[in-house]
């Protein structure tokens, strides 16, 4: 385990029937650190993310938060430890409006125990305006909203509630260039606030720009960890493809 780490994953494996999606993955994220998780399609990134956010348990291995082993039986457990996730496939209920999705699972109530719709609408509106000032018409079913607006809801809700570890599984996949830049800004801002971020992305240039460390996953195994400052695009790409590092002289180890 790494000293002072926010979250440690130790020897995580995951099996789906006959498919071994993860074969013993170690990973840790510290506060105020952006760790990028990269790898091929099907490398196991999303599976790892879902284990860390409590969607399903690992087949074996341990999750530690602040050094203490924890077991998540549901996503709300992970949330109790201030772990928030923005999923690759947007996890919004299409039939509900933005405030309802924003507060889903932790609704505000009035003194009498009823939904405090007014307050929720106000807070959601403010939080969303922080991300995108043009996003005002929020009280309609999210089915009618654009990919960028939906992503804004997912992001806003993840960072609104005292998050310590933010997991972002390809947060910019559905976004245009402008929104992508906004997300990059946001990542920097959150990092400065001391939040740990686990970022999954296929855009190696982005990753190099935003991350402190880069962890490469291949066929369910960690095949390398790089410090973003000391590496370059070619090296990362090569590691993703071949699963090993280039020697100083360019030969394959």
């Amino acid at each position: 385990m790494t000293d002072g780490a926010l979250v440690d994953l130790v020897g995580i494996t995951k099996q789906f029937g006959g498919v071994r999606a993860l074969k013993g993955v170690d990973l840790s994220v510290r506060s105020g650190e952006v760790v990028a998780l990269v790898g091929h399609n099907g490398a196991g990134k999303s599976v790892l993310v879902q284990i860390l956010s409590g969607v399903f348990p690992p087949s074996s291995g341990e999750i530690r938060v602040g050094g203490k082993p924890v077991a998540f039986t549901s996503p709300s457990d992970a949330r109790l430890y201030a772990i928030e996730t923005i999923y690759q496939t947007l996890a919004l209920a299409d039939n509900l409006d933005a405030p309802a999705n924003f507060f889903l699972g932790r609704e505000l109530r009035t003194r009498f125990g009823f939904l405090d719709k007014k307050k929720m609408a106000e807070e959601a509106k403010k939080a969303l305006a922080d991300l995108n000032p043009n996003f005002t018409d929020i009280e309609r079913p999210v089915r009618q909203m654009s990919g960028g607006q939906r992503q804004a809801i997912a992001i806003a809700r993840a960072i609104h509630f005292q998050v310590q570890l933010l997991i972002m599984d390809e947060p910019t996949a559905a976004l245009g260039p402008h929104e992508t830049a906004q997300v990059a800004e946001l990542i920097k801002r959150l990092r400065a606030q001391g939040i740990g971020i686990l970022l999954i992305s296929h855009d190696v240039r982005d990753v190099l720009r935003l991350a402190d460390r880069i962890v490469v996953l291949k066929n369910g195994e960690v095949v390398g960890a790089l410090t973003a400052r000391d590496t370059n695009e070619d090296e990362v790409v090569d590691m993703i493809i071949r699963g090993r590092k280039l020697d100083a002289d360019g030969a394959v180890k």
Partner: protein
Amino acid sequence: MTAASTPWRFVTPIWPVLAVLVIGAALLSGPFLSPANIAAVLQQGVITGIVALGMTIVLIGGQFDLSTGATVMMAAVLALLLNPADGTSTVLAILLPVALGGVIGLVNGLAVYRAGANSIVATIGMQFLVIGAVLALVSGQHVRADNMSEMFVSLSRARFLGIPYSVYIFLGLVVALSIIMSNTVFGRHVYALGGDIEAARRAGVKVVRTGIATYMISGMLAALAGVLIASLVGNLDPTAIRGYEFPALTAVVLGGTSLTGGVGRPADTAAAIWVIAVITNVMTILNYQYPVQLLVQGVVLTAAVAFYSWQRARS
């Protein structure tokens, strides 16, 4: 269409339909507007209506409950078997069937939300399981309760302002469920379940617990409907009271509850219940028999489903 997409606001098309039907029925047949007939129409909808309210909740959550008709029968038979003659037995004859209805709902809910069973087929299986059990219990014979207590009889018979108590019970349930569905966390979560169950789970909604609760509500309401039947007739042939799930489902769908979940309101189901009650009443006045009414119900259901799916496809 905003009506179909925003679950807790706006007037859905069923209300104008109801208004037109009532006016039409009044013009078409003189006896329709007599106070006695209006009370009859109101009461006619109550039993099916209570069943339909429960099924609405389950369907908003994205699932079906076709075991309700059997639960109605179970509760009616059980209430009479408990022979509600005095105070204690009356309370028992109301509470026990309702509790058992809750248990049936619990089993349905576990099967559907915990084990992931197909809700239509599972609840049809449950329907036959319950009907068989009840018939076995009474060996297929009539059940009757002699000298039922006044309190028990008054559930369905007593009137206030010329309208039976059971109608007030129904209206009270409509109001209560409307508030629950649109103003409580539970209601919000049921809508989320029907919208995207995986999204709800990831957002921290206790989907299994919420889903089971929808089935338990449905089971308890169906049982309450059965108790009201028992109070109304006092003597029944168990094989004769069944099939309530179908008109109830028709009302639920007619009220605009989406077959895929996430959209619908208890009050709209109530409106649809009156629509069906008016149609049935007019058909009875015009002397159409049960088979034709069955046929018409099937047509209404099909038309309603077709209409709403067309409307949704358009928006």
